């Protein structure tokens, strides 16, 4: 990996706008500006169209002979299928309100990273075929024909968008560039263009059920190891039910929580919490990936990967599904799942919390509850004994992940939980949180090493806001409820606000959770000493 410039340099060396009009400029495929392409075998295993080996830096991308026809037909097909696409192609007035709302634009100052121009890349092609004047006047009114360079350009910028929807919030017509990006990615897949870091996990999820392709027995082994760790820390070994029939709840979380630091602490948090509650639940190795990498590829791929959830809930006879902390998983669950793979199997019923009796009416059809909702409800009803002082070494802030924020509206539930399990909490500046949140800059399949500088650029708005609260309030922990964030934010924090660590919500809950039969807790889930250890604590520490 190339050496990164310092934050100062990175900001200072963002180039000025080119002198030529955008129709005249072309992206340069230099290392670091693009992600590696998907392997031929991967694409074959997934029955994707035109699997082939190719190199983004090469002149010839080895597209199929009739690529232009394939793309034009696919575009027409998508216009027929999506009213959103037709509408977004037609009604943008180029007011520019979305321009500086995109973290990629802010970080790169590349005009084509303004959401409006990202969309214009496709719109210019639309103009040629779907507007009378476009055919006659061509470039004069921003219309152009498909050519090899255009395909490359679409690829370049479709993978410099994390589908975070921040632009759609600010657009007066709600034009959602994420939707356009998603469709452009679909089109590119028609001619065999995809990313390694997306397609590999897709293949793995499709077969083994998790994105790293870990086989069922190793998966179980890892979970058992985490349970052992929980036992060391808490003194009680949590249950680890797998693929068991007849439980009320099926729990599905992003598999990143099982494999990767710091996600594993969140997973340990789930285990400890469920054990303390004596929750009637099971995990599944078959549906062990909540995160939906298919949603970075195409609607149908998202559907394919998502289908396992209901299939497994039906097979195991679960009444409802509890979902872990993951961003794109919840975008899919909240807005697509029911449409893709519903109606739910007949054994499923509207979720009811077994402890508080709360009926999750908002999940009546999908029958999936977010763990932050579940936890907030428990805390509200005093069902958890909490000692937030165990998190006193942490000064926390909350990162709203883009998908739960703008594709779901999950904003106050996690805050409610967080405020009950930590004593020190500070918000980042208001234009960088809640529905206006900036994403981590590497979602939607862009969290690869090879584009690290680009990621630091797109992570600039989040990084700056984090640094602000770090410097002002001494914040040293950013919590979030997204597995991709837990993978992408640590390098971002190291770069923009060194010293800040990242964690999930449930890790902090489990730190604070006073469990029945626990031994004297001396370390947190990360095996770091708890604060106030030397101070003599009274017996039977009372939670809040």
């Amino acid at each position: 990996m190339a050496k990164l410039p310092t934050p100062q340099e990175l900001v200072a060396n963002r180039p000025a706008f080119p002198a030529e009009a955008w129709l005249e400029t072309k992206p340069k495929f230099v290392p670091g500006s693009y992600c590696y392409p998907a392997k031929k075998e991967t694409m074959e295993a997934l029955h994707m169209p035109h699997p082939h080996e190719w190199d983004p830096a090469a002149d010839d991308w080895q597209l199929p002979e009739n690529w232009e026809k394939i793309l034009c037909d696919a575009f027409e097909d998508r216009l027929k299928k999506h009213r959103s696409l037709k509408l977004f192609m037609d009604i943008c007035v180029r007011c520019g309100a979305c321009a500086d709302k995109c973290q990629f634009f802010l970080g790169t100052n590349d005009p084509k990273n303004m959401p409006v121009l990202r969309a214009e890349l496709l719109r210019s092609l639309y103009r040629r075929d779907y507007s009378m004047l476009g055919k006659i006047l061509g470039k004069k009114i921003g219309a152009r024909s498909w050519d090899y360079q255009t395909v490359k350009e679409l690829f370049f910028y479709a993978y410099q968008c994390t589908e975070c929807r921040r632009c759609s919030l600010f657009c007066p017509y709600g034009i959602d560039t994420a939707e356009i990006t998603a469709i452009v990615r679909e089109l590119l897949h028609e001619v065999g263009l995809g990313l390694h870091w997306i397609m590999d996990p897709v293949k793995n999820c499709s077969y083994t059920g998790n994105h790293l392709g870990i086989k069922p027995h190793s998966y179980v082994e890892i979970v058992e190891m985490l349970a052992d760790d929980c036992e060391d820390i808490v003194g009680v070994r949590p249950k680890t039910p797998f693929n068991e029939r007849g439980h009320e709840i099926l729990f599905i979380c992003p598999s990143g929580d099982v494999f990767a630091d710091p996600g594993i602490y969140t997973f340990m948090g789930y285990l400890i919490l469920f054990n303390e509650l004596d929750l009637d639940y099971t995990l599944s190795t078959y549906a062990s990936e909540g995160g939906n990498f298919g949603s970075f590829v195409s609607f149908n791929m998202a559907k394919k990967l998502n289908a396992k959830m209901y299939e497994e809930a039906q097979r195991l006879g679960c009444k409802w599904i509890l979902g872990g902390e993951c961003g794109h998983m919840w975008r899919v669950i909240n807005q697509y799942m029911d449409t893709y793979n519903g109606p739910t199997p007949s054994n499923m019923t509207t979720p009811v919390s077994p402890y508080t009796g709360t009926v999750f009416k908002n999940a009546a059809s999908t029958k999936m509850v977010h763990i932050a909702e579940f936890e907030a409800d428990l805390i509200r009803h005093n069902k958890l004994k909490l000692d937030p002082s165990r998190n006193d070494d942490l000064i926390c802030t909350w990162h709203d992940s883009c998908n739960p924020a703008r594709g779901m509206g999950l904003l106050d539930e996690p805050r409610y939980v967080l405020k009950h399990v930590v004593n020190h909490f500070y918000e980042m500046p208001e234009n960088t949180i809640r529905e206006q949140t900036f994403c981590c800059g590497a979602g939607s399949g862009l969290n690869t090493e090879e584009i690290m500088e680009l990621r630091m650029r797109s992570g600039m708005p989040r990084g700056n806001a984090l640094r602000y609260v770090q410097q002002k309030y001494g914040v040293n922990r950013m919590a979030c409820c997204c597995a991709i964030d837990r993978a992408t934010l640590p390098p971002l924090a190291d770069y923009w606000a060194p010293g800040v660590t990242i964690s999930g919500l449930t890790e902090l809950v489990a730190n604070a959770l006073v469990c029945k039969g626990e031994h004297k807790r001396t370390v947190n889930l990360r095996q770091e000493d708890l604060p106030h250890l030397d101070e003599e604590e009274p017996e039977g520490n009372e939670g809040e």
Partner: protein
Amino acid sequence: MLNSLLVVALVAIIAWLGAAIGLGSLFGVVLPYVAIVVFLGGVVWRMVWWAKSPVPFAIPTTGGQEKSLDFIKQAQWDCPDTTLGVVKRMFLEVFLFRSLFRNVNAEIKQDDPVNGGPRLIYYSSKWLWVFALLFHYCFFIVFFRHFRFFVDPVPGCVSFMEMIDGFLQIGAPRFYLTGGLLLVAVLFLIGRRLVNPRVRYISLTQDYFPLFLILGIVVSGIAMRYFLKTDITQVKAFVMGLVHFNPISADGIDPIFFVHVCLVSTLLIYFPFSKLTHMAGIFFSPTRNLPCNTRRVRHVNPWNPPKDFLTYPEYEDLYREAMAGANLPLDKPLEAETKQKSGE
């Protein structure tokens, strides 16, 4: 940019010359009829074209807290979960440009004292919102005032609007505030496209064209009313003729009137084929016009393809041995399978 200006100027000059050489009825009668037909037909055609594609997924942008637990306060306006709520959200969006109101301007400060390095700072930036509102509302009121020419007797609401609009009571004929403001707003929108480097970079010919067209319409209208003092009774008689499909002779009407009419007709004809359809389009926008209740109510996709995925039995077939090794429950026990195999 210049192209647009030239085209608009050309339209105006042609109308002027045409009227001067006695083609008034072409520009004053035929063109307006054509324009109205094209406008109405065109807008309907565009809406039908949109409506022909389904909305496969419910993708509202959640602009605030969802409705979930009862102690968590829902952002009713920005994240509505009911039809009534959506109507309210759309109302804010259409009449008050709610999303545009959020606008902020992000600027990077290289050496921020707090951050000890670069920091993005967000400045409230409501100018676009202010002028966009001003532009659209003034346009509407000016349009509404024109009903004085289309309807006889003049409806009370039109006279009332005129009274309010002319409350400054200056000049004769009385100066209408909205006309002046509309001019200011159009000039702002043009100026912004020219001055703001980002907007300038994204602007296309078809972004300047309607602005110049509207500028031409406003200027010719103002000129007609305040400077050339066109004979209003004559114009009204002429327009009423059009309204009753009984056109009368255009003789004696100042050519500026035909310039005005011709520019308006051009705008109407251009409208359905351009970004101006955003006026109708906003009502179709799936990120705004759908309730945020997607977990409570199932949205149906008419082209939902059949399910195609690795089913559990297929999965178990792939990993049965590994699963058995890990003591995972199996639907089809390992022994059965091995027995089967050995039996064959």
